Structures are given as C-alpha cells and as structure tokens.
C-alpha cells in the first residue's frame, strides 16, 4: 500500500490513460474526453501534491526513486498536462479523426515523463524516455494537412530516433564501464574521472538534448514548432521541456563531484550552451513565423539552462530547476495565446497578432507577460531565473561566459520587441474579437500570476528547487 501511495501520480496517470483509451474506443464526444482529461489532470496534481514530500523506492528498489526532486517535477508535469488539455479546446488544426486521441497520447507521454524523472536505472530510463516520446511523434503527425504534418513529424521523429539510438549507444558504455545499470553504481566519484564515463554520459545526454531542443539536437525544433498542431506544440514546448531539464539534472548529478574538476564534459557542455544560445537568438532574428521564432527562442533558452548545468554544482541544478518551472509558465503563456488566436489557422505569423490588444486585450496582455518573461524583464520570472542561472556560472568564475549570455539576452530583445510592437501598435487586419472561455481565462490568469509571483517572490520557489537539487545530489 505504501508503495502504491508513492506511485500514486503514475498510477492515476495510467488509470486515467486507460479511461481515455476507452473513450476513444467508445468514440465519446471530444467534450467528454477533454472533460475527463481535465479531471484526470486535477487528480494527478492532487496525487502529486499528496506525495510531494514523501520519499522512497516503490516496488523495485534501486531502479525507481521517489524523492522531492521527482515529485516536484511531477507536480509541474501534472499542472502542465492540465493546462495543455485546457488549451486544446476545439483543436481545429488537428485532423478531425484524431481529436479523441490527443488527450490520450498526452497523458501517456506525461506518464512516460513522470517515470523518466523518477528512473534511477538505465533501462527504466530508456523505456520511460521512449514512452514519453512515441505518443508525441504520433500527435505531431496528426495535423489536418497531411503534407505539413508528415514532414514535421518525420523530421521530429528521425531526429528523435537517432538521438535515442545515440543515447542507447552511450548507455551501453556506461553499462560496460560500471557493469551495472543502476545509477547508484554509476555515480562513483573516483571512477567518474574516467574519460569513457564522460563519453558515455555525453552520448546518453544526446537523447535528452533532443527533448530539450539543445544544440546540436535542436534542428527539429524550428520546423516542428512551426507546423505541429498548436496544442501539440504547446505540450512539447512546455511539459516535455520540464521533463528534459529534470532528467538532465538527474544525469548530470551523476558526475557531480568530479564533473567540474575533470573538465571533460564541462567544456563540451559549455560550448553547447554558447552555440545554442547564440545560434538560437541569431536565427530567431530573421523569423517571420511566430511559432518558428519561439522554436529558435527555445533553443536559446536551452542554452541558458545548460549554462547553469555545466557548472556541475548544486547552485546550478537549483537554478536550472527553478528556471524550468519558470520557463514552463512563460512559454505556456505564449502558447496559450497562440492556441487561442490560431484556432483555425495553420500558421501563426508575427502579423497574425497585429493589433491583438484591440481584438483580445486580455490575451494580448498574457502574451505580453510571457514575452517579458522570455526576454528576462522583471517583474517576471524570466528576470529572476536568468539572475540565478547566470549567478550559477559566475559562482564558477565564468565571467565572460555570463557576459556572452547576457549579450545574447540583449540581442534576443529585438525579436521579442518586434512581436510586442505588432501586438500593441500595429492596426489589426480584422476586427474579429476573440473572447476566451472562462476556463481559458482562468488558466491564463493563473499563468500570469505564476510568472509574476515567481518573479517577485522567488524565495519559496527557490527553496523548493534547492531542496529538489539536494535530493538529487545526496
């Protein structure tokens, strides 16, 4: 029973997944299905909160850990799932035949991610990773236009498969070096200095870099962001990012005591971070498609997160976790608006949001807050998060690295401001007002509150992230 309690979020996820499966089988209406998905989201959040401060290893000792870290991430994942399901009301961009499957695949992917962050063994990790990935491959392809959907799904999936193959290849080396698939056996400080360990670790990271959209596995991001159905890309851009950052934290914590000193992985990660943020920001400057632009922006943000992770320090992990939560909120604010205004449009260009303040004042305010967050302006979480991330790097004395990152943030300002200009200054092309449903308005409100609360009262959130990071290291 105790095991079941520890396992409660995943169990609820699994059970509700089955319920949703039967909904599809019985061909219920989309309203009902979505209603059930929302209910299951709420149940998951409740379960996560219930187990938030529990610790243990349910069912299989050594391969599955429930600790504060995993439960914190799971809570955010559950919230993310709920929000995405709410946002995917009336998802016209999805093939009409596939509507019912959307919540189903989301919930299974979420289940995969939940298991991923709890996994403490390579095989479990691998299985969870694939479980998280496959449903998303499918929903990307569910775009109502077969050509666009097919191309973006193929690109996404080829990258994903290659990345997971590379990951697997790396895992084999980890396994070979330590003779065990348990993390507890792998994270041995003195052996950690062996270069083959770092090679294995880096190759393993490839799969998660892919998820995070970090350089050099980011190439799918712009293309898929641009064309995937809006709710789907919302899911990828928010929920799966948290899981990716979470698992990166977990994996890098394996190399924690020696990672910085030996410098092998650190150098590689540092360059990945620098190139990711520079390339992401520079490429975003030239974009006209809003979603594509956000795709590049996500690459840049992955760079910022790596900046903290490459420090191999508790501070860095804490900052990355804090930023993961914040990033979820900021980017959700943006994508929620995209879902709303782009119900019937396949592509959202920058011009689509022209004069949105006249057509939908509240939504444009939401987008504004989200963009402010992504720029890194106070009082949003973007500012505080960057402060923590950069602080982590400076703790290691990487002054110029932080300088580069900060300059990148200034360059990024340009394209974000262009969007804001469209939002608030340019006259709208149509006068159609968009009135969000109360549920969506409440969700938007909650997101704004989260973004601003984390930006102005970061204390409790930082403490939680720090607790999670400590749970990882110990």
């Amino acid at each position, binding site marked *: 029973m105790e095991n079941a309690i520890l396992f409660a979020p995943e169990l609820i996820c699994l059970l509700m997944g089955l319920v949703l499966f039967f909904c599809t089988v019985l061909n219920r209406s989309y309203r009902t299905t979505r209603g059930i998905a929302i209910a299951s989201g709420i149940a998951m959040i409740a379960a996560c909160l219930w187990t938030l401060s529990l610790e243990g290893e349910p069912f299989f000792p050594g391969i599955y850990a429930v600790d504060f870290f995993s439960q914190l991430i799971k809570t955010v994942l559950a919230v993310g799932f709920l929000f995405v399901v709410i946002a995917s009301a009336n998802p016209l961009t999805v093939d009409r035949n596939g509507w019912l499957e959307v919540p189903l695949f989301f919930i299974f992917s979420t289940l995969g991610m939940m298991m991923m962050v709890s996994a403490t063994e390579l095989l479990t990790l691998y299985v969870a990773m694939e479980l998280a990935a496959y449903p998303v491959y499918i929903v990307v392809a569910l775009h109502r236009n077969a050509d666009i959907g097919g191309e973006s799904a193929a690109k996404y999936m080829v990258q994903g498969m290659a990345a997971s193959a590379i990951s697997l290849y790396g895992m084999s080396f980890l396994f070979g070096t330590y003779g065990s698939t348990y993390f507890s056996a792998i994270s041995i400080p003195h052996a950690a200095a062996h270069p083959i360990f770092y090679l294995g670790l880096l190759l393993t990271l490839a799969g998660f870099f892919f998820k995070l959209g970090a350089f050099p596995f980011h190439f799918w991001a712009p293309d898929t962001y641009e064309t995937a159905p809006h709710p789907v890309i919302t899911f990828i851009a928010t929920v799966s990012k948290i899981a990716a950052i979470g698992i990166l934290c977990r994996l890098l914590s394996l190399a924690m005591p020696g990672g910085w000193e030996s410098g092998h992985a650190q150098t590689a990660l540092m360059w990945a971070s620098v190139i990711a943020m520079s390339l992401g920001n520079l490429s975003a400057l030239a974009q006209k498609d809003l979603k594509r632009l956000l795709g590049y922006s996500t690459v840049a943000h992955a760079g910022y997160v790596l900046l903290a992770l490459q420090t191999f320090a508790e501070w860095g992990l804490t900052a990355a976790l804090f930023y993961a939560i914040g990033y979820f909120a900021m980017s959700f604010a943006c994508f929620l608006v995209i879902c709303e205004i782009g119900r019937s449009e396949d592509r959202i260009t920058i011009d689509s949001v022209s004069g949105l303040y006249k057509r939908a004042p509240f939504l444009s305010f939401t987008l504004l807050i989200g963009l402010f967050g992504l720029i890194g302006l106070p009082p949003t979480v973007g500012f505080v998060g960057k402060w923590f991330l950069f602080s982590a790097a400076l703790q290691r004395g990487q002054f110029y690295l932080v300088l580069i990152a*900060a300059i990148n943030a*200034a360059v990024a300002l340009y394209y974000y401001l262009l969007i804001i200009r469209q939002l608030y200054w340019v006259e709208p092309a149509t006068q159609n007002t968009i009135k969000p449903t109360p549920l969506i308005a409440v969700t938007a409100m909650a997101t704004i509150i989260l973004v601003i609360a984390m930006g102005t009262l970061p204390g409790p959130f930082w403490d939680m992230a720090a607790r999670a990071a400590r749970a990882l290291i110990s």
Partner: protein
Amino acid sequence: MPLLSSILLTPVITLIILLLMPQKAVRGIRLICAFSGLLTCVLSLQLWMGYDPTSGGIQFEEIIPWVSAIGISYHLGVDGFGVILVMLNSIVYFTGVLTMWDLEDRVKEYFAFMVLLVIGVFGVFMSLDLFFFFFFYEIAVVPMYPLILIWGSGNRAYAGMKLMLFLLAGSALLFPGLLAIYHHAGLNTFDIIALSAHTFDPQFQIFVYPFIYIGFGVLAGLFPFHGWSPTGHVAAPSAVSMLHAGVLMKLGAFGILTVGIRLLPEGAAYWAPTFVVLAVIGIIYGAYVAMRQTDFKFVIGFSSVSHMGIVLLGLNLAVLGSVAATDALNGAVFQMFAHGIMTALFFSTAGYIYDKSHSKTIADFGGLGAQMPRAVSIFIVAGLCGAGLPGLASFWAELLVFLAALKTYPIAGVIVILGLVLTAVYILRVFNQAFFGAPNPKWENLKAQDMSGLHLIPRAILIAVLVIFGFVPRLMLDLINSTTVAFLGNF
C-alpha cells in the same frame, strides 16, 4: 507602515487599481494617478523632513529576508542622496501626470505603464540589495518601449527599439559585473551595505569597475553610448520624456554611485582619469551637436547628454580622493536633482508646444513668443537653467563640479567652463529661431491655445522648485553634504 515601503507601495497599489479599472473611466484614472502622485510627494516631503542630516548615513532602513538561502533581502534605506532623488521622482511623477491630463488615447494603459516606470525608479533609489537594485532598474526600463511606441511621435518604432537595445546592452554588462561582486565577496549576501564593508581585491575591482560604470553609464547618457537618448527623447510623449530624461537617466548615475563607487572604490579611482576624459568630451560634444539640431527635442536631448556629462564628471572627480572630492560629489548629486527638474520642465513645455502645433522643427516657428507667451516664457526659464544661470538650481551644481574640476584637472575644468558658452549658444539659438523674430502667421491659431489653468500648475511647480533651490541651495546642500562626507569617509 514604514515610510519607504509606503512610498514604494503607493504606485504599486495605484497600478493594481488601474489594471482593475474599466478602460472608459478616463477621468477616474487620471484622478487616481494625480492623487497617487500627490501622495508620493507628500510622503517624500515627510521623508525629507524626517531624515536627520546631522547623523547622516543610511536611515529608514527596512529589511525583510527574501531569498535567504542565497542572501537576497528586501532591504530598503536611503541616505541623503536617496532622499533627494526620491523627492525628484515624486515631483516629476506628479507633474508628469498633470502634464498628460489631456491624453485621450488608451489612457488606462498609458498610466499603467507610466506608473510601472515610477515604481522601478522609486525602487532603485531605495534598494540596498544588489538584486532588488537591478530588479527595479530593469523594471524602470521596460515600460519605455510601449510608452514610446504607442504614444510617441515621429520615428518611434526605431527610437524605441534603439533605446531598449542600448539599455539592455548596458544591462548585459551589468549582469556579470553585479554577480561577480556577489561571488567574489563570498559573503553569501547581495546586501550592498554588507558588501561595502568587504574590501575587494584591487585587481578584481579594476577588472569589474568598467563593466559597472559603462553598464550604468549607458543609461546616464555616457559618451559615446548616448545615441539612444536623444532619439528616444524625441520620439517619446512629453511626460515620458520628462520621466525619462528627468529621472531615468539619473538611475544610471545613481547606480554608478551606489554600486560602482561604494563597492569598488579602488577600481573607480583607477579608472577615473579615463572616464573624466569621456565625461568632458561628452559635455562639449553634446553642446556642439545640440547646436545643429533642427528639432526642439533633439536639442534638449543632446543638452541632456551634455548635462549628464557634468554629473559623470563630478562622480569621477569624487573618487580621486582629492581635496575637491566633497564638492565634486555634492555637485554631481545636486546636478542630478537640478537637471531632473529642468529637463522635466523642458520636455513638459516642448511637449505642450508640440501637442498644439504638431511641429517640432525649430525653424518652423519663428516669433512664437508673440503667440504663446506663457509656454514660451516657461521654456525660456528651462533654457536659462540649462545655460547654468545663477538663481536657478543647476548653477550650484555646475559651480561645485567645475570647482572640483579646476582643482583636480585644471585644463578639464577650463574646458568644461568654456562649455557654458556653448550651452548658451545652442539655447539662444533655439530662442532666436523659434520664439523671437517676426511671428509666423501659420501659428496664429495657437494664440487661443496658450497654456492656461491646469496646464500651468505642473510647470509652475517645477519652476518654483528650480528657483527655490536656486536661491536657497542650503535646503538641499546640507542634506547632500552630510551624506557626502559620510560617503567619502568610508573610502
């Protein structure tokens, strides 16, 4: 309720109320803002009265741990400089609201952004924690973009973008600089007071100081990074220009003072000669460039570059540890205040003329003095203050800085004093081309639209402040001087 938090929370609450008000309640929005401006003025006056200059130092401290794990705390407190600048911001806020009383377009949003800007400025002047200092600093910068973009004029998209890019590029230098200070001290606190007790390694100070100086300096119109400021001023609506040139640019100088000089005195001293040269160039350069501008606001914009050069000059002279350090710092802080009020007056009046005529081209007017005597007179007062005329506040500031310059670097001193003539040249050029001479019949319709009633109130307040401190500088100098002595005593 602690006084500083009350001052800070007044605009915060105003902002929340504004966001909850309906779009249409234009009158109510204006009244609320005016009331909040007045309230901050009253509270600031209380602060001014309550500050005890005899004991000097930081007073009205409030500390609430914010993120205690890494040493961020909500630490407010003001020294004499802070008191004065808080007062400045209150005055400019209040008069700025009154200046924009006639605004009809998207009133709610306008005032919301403006109040956000005010919050940021108050926060910077009060914060004694590096995190919050920077936090509020950025808050103050953010609203500039929408304000310029939506309510501005002319080439506003370009100007707003340029302004933001310059300022955030400045922040990009500050980010590593501020964090390096924190980590290098190793005290696990962002508290400026605690950090100032720590002596940083001189090599480190020399390395980091330019980042801090240039990073904040961009906002203070530091030559050659001033390009954003005239363009931004020109495009912004008048009350935004008022806040921008009047208060926002002071944030930069205040940042150099509070973070740069207070924490890194040796670095500051090492770099001071270089930056003195830049400041002197800025003063002269701004004046010369202002001479050729064809647009009112560009003239004022470049004059701001020139006048802020005086502030920067004073700050740099203060750290050289010479006998004139006190005068230099007194002068620099006095100039922050005086220039703030002066440019507020400038922009408020230039904005008025623009609103009525929709022309900013100097040569377009000619003899406006006969058509809008009141507006023109007020502009002239501001111009004369800019020219450093005695009897108006900035005279004292310039006097003190020039004195220090003459003592420390006689050649620089003579050059900047000669700059006074250049200032007079460009100011009088504006007067002669726009206000004097044969009246242009094109503007006969403006006769009926001269400033009156409500429009005169904010300008009258600003003029009164200028004149009062012009003739009774003691009111402020006593406050500044005691703080300066304490400040320099820490070196």
